[in-house]
């Protein structure tokens, strides 16, 4: 929570689990409960889908370095 405060209240959470009700949602909620949320948070996670067998399709869904980097750029710009 303190680190979120130091970075302007802009939390980003990243995980490989699906977005909805993931651990990241709990982290964001606790930041909000602590009053440290100053900005729309970024939840960087897998969309609420099943994971396809084709590696190319799985790669499109699972956040990789580029996707995370892009999401952080949007967060910092926003």
């Amino acid at each position: 929570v303190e680190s979120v405060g130091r970075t302007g209240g802009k939390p980003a959470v990243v995980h490989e689990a699906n977005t909805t009700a993931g651990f990241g949602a709990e982290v964001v909620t606790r930041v909000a409960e602590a009053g440290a949320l100053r900005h729309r948070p970024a939840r960087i996670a897998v969309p609420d889908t099943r994971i396809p067998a084709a590696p190319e399709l799985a790669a499109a869904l699972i956040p990789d370095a580029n996707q995370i980097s892009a999401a952080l750029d949007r967060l910092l710009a926003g």
Partner: protein
Amino acid sequence: MAEQTVTVNYSGAVNAALRRCLAELPETLLYGEDVAKPGGVHGVTRGLWKEFGDRVFDTPISESAILGSAVGAAMMGRRPIVEIMWADFFLVALDQMVNQAANIRYVSEGRLTAPLVVRTQQGNSPGACAQHSQNLEALFLHTPGLRVAMPSSPQDAYDIMVSAVYCDDPVVVIDNRTLYFGEKQAIVTGRPPSPHRGQPRAAHRPRRHGRHLGRDHAPGAGSSRPAGRAVDSGHRHRNTVAEPVRH
């Protein structure tokens, strides 16, 4: 146990932690599908059966039996470390974990505990497909009575496994299997299990310092692997990394 620095990859760190616990705690058992003679489907438990004999054994393909027997053994004074080969396979045995193990301390009014560790691994990797790719940590985090840890480095994997085995509550330790054969790193072994009983030594700590972007990682927060890569390869972000504060 004396402190020592060894250079191991992630799976080597888990192996070292398991070896230490089996040596230090005669009440420990290590079992699951293919963990003994084959040394684990990913080789994580290699050599332990040879070293510790009957306390390390293979089981039939029955997750309910693995977890159910672990709950009973833990209640009777053993300290079982069991493996569920893939987190997806946990689902056939959730009654033993969520309805039994998590309730032991509560329903016995604190007279009994269930000091067991379930090791498992999860996530996607090529060829894993839909039934072997799920990340299920939130299911366990949602259950009071269970502790959940997700290490992300060899040092964390070692520390968390040792602390989990010494912990008197049921602990689920979830690895991301793509970390198993990562680069070797120097880790410190032999430190006391945890400054606070039941709390993993690694726990929450800042992983990266900078100016605009902090990077904290908590066990249970999902693998930091993709995030780490983003920060590592994120030249644009590297100079804007903020200084996170210890919590």
